[in-house]
């Protein structure tokens, strides 16, 4: 195959990523940003540092979709939290591991191409970060991009008020017999 990846290269990258995740989690534990902090106020699962990190990103990823439903980035973030209710504890633990890692500037640089915290970037800068991040060639950056943004979309568009902005007329009504 002309554009194919080298499998051994990918596995090596995977191993490096796991090592990075392990180190990152260790570092965040040392710095006090551990996954034991408990959920932020008003949230069932996301911790305050996750809310601070991800809310600006939700705003940038969802773009005009939020305003079209009369909503804000905070509403999108709450929807993301709702989605986690269906997940298993192990599913959430994996997500939190990536989020712990992304508290580190070095990890953000490796994954997204910039050291800056998402909350410290302007709207234009965030769009540029997403453009750079989604075009990255390293496998771990691609996994992080998909792993974080895919659930954001799903979490938002399953909400009836968001679903209606896509032109979906909505489901039939179930009436209890």
């Amino acid at each position: 195959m002309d554009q194919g990846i080298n499998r051994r290269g990918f596995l090596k990258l995977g191993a490096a990523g796991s090592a990075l995740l392990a180190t990152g989690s260790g570092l965040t534990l040392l710095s006090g940003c551990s996954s034991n902090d408990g959920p932020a106020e008003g949230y069932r699962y996301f911790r305050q540092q996750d809310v601070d990190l991800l809310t600006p990103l939700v705003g940038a990823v969802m773009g005009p979709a939020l305003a079209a439903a009369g909503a804000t980035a905070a509403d999108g973030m709450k929807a993301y939290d709702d989605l986690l209710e269906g997940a298993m504890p192990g599913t959430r633990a994996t997500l939190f591991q990536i989020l712990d890692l992304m508290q580190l500037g070095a990890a953000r640089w490796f994954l997204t191409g910039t050291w800056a915290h998402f909350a410290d970037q302007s709207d234009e800068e965030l769009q540029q970060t997403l453009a750079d991040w989604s075009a990255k060639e390293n496998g771990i950056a691609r996994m992080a991009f998909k792993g974080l943004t895919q659930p954001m979309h799903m979490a938002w568009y399953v909400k009836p008020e968001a679903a209606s902005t896509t032109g979906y007329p909505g489901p039939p009504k179930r009436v209890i017999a």
Partner: protein
Amino acid sequence: MKDLSTLQIKVDDPWKNPAENGWDVIDGRTITDNRTLEADVVIIGSGAGGGVSAEILSQSGLKVIVLEAAKLKTSDQFNLDEGEAYRDLYQEGAMRATKDAGMTILQGRAVGGTTVVNWTSSFRTPRETLNFWRDQYAVDGLSREELDPWFAAMEKRLNIEKWLVPPNANNDVLKRGCDALGWHAEAIPRNVSGCWNIGYCGMGCPTNAKLSMLVTTLPGALKSGATLIHSAQADTLIIEGDTVTGVKVHPLKDDKTPNGATLTLKARAVISSGGSMQSPALLLRSGVPDPHGLVGTRTFLHPTNFAYGIYDQEIAPYYGAPQSMYSDEFVFKHGVDGPAGYKLEMMPMHPGLNSALVGGYGETAFEHMQRLPNLAASIALLRDGFHEDNTGGKVELRDNGEPLLDYPVNDYLLEGTKRAHLTQLEMQFAAGAKEVRPGHAHAPYYKSWKEAKAGVANLEYAPTITGLGSAHVMGGLTMGQDDSRCTVNSDGSYKHLNGLYVIDGSVFPTSLGVNPQLTIYGISARNATKLAETLTA
């Protein structure tokens, strides 16, 4: 397309008052003390394998307990809300994915298993697949001729027949495209009775027209004296010497974590019917003897890739029977064990699923989401497990014992995906699409087949950016008489322990090349009947 949002659905729910029907149904959330229950047979899992087994074994006079981790949810609660369906009826709330996030996995977690949320496609196992199993794994007694009577019996039980109602606009794209190109296309057999053709199979059928295990074999088993325990998770098998004598169970709270009580189920026979990933994980947690280290290996997904077409006319991919047309033009085109073959079907698209698959960010992403009413979504399901470069994935345990599938996306799958993308692009342009985009993070919408061909040639086919998913998890506990490569005999008995049987899709030595439910029904009916004969002899 008619707007169905004003349609009212009012249908009786057979599960409204289980006790009034004389059904013995225990809600695990109410079990707060440690207790022991005994039966002839304990069946772990209530999906395609467990449901069929439960009915057959109960009707032969055996005392059966069916155990299900999911909370009971039935048609009165199927309110067609996409988010609630993912939360309550899917593994990991539909957030399940392979270890490196390369493939997303939609698998059911419900009383009735995946049959409650599947799209009703019902095919007999291809002859080529069954012959491959016989030749490569010494699978015994499961030739197409030997299985045909079992398929016929289950087709009768579940009213499986070719869907003769005209396809919805989404499925009509497949028919038009294939017809124009001279490719095979045919109507799909479905397990429905009095289907309303509304399109919500994936959220729990609100009309009970889909003949899932929830409304067929499970009520059948309960009527014959079986007990159903839901909201309770099988933790480990109880192994005494070389015999399985029961299972240790943790009742679950609403948040799916153990409530602290322990339920012990004892039986002469224990059947693992949790489905692929869950069944291998149960055996791994239990530390079963496994001399060749095979448990969890050879897990397959029918890695599925996508193409999205935009049409001038309204498609409304959210309404109408979700799958009604298919093409087998490319399934065995390059032989059974050559480059990956693929089955072509269509996929229903509701806003949540659409957004997760289409992806992107910012303004462009929202523009793409707003094209939903005019969008047709085709899929190609790659046959995995037939070629030496494609041995599938391996089930591992997370630290807390939950299953996780390690299935790296390799060149074999990426090459097959690239060919399948081209096939779908050609098909959708032939069906009259104005623009088509393959499911690939870096691909734009192409305006013509010529432009698409050139575009795909220059796309990077690599894991994660190449959109892949699965709604068919198979294998992990390979069946066959070759002891060095298989863990389960062709009759479902585990090779290295007495009293343990595996009756679900995890026994498949490869993927199938067709949607799996009818294969699971047929083989399960055959092996449960054999087990009933043994236990009542």
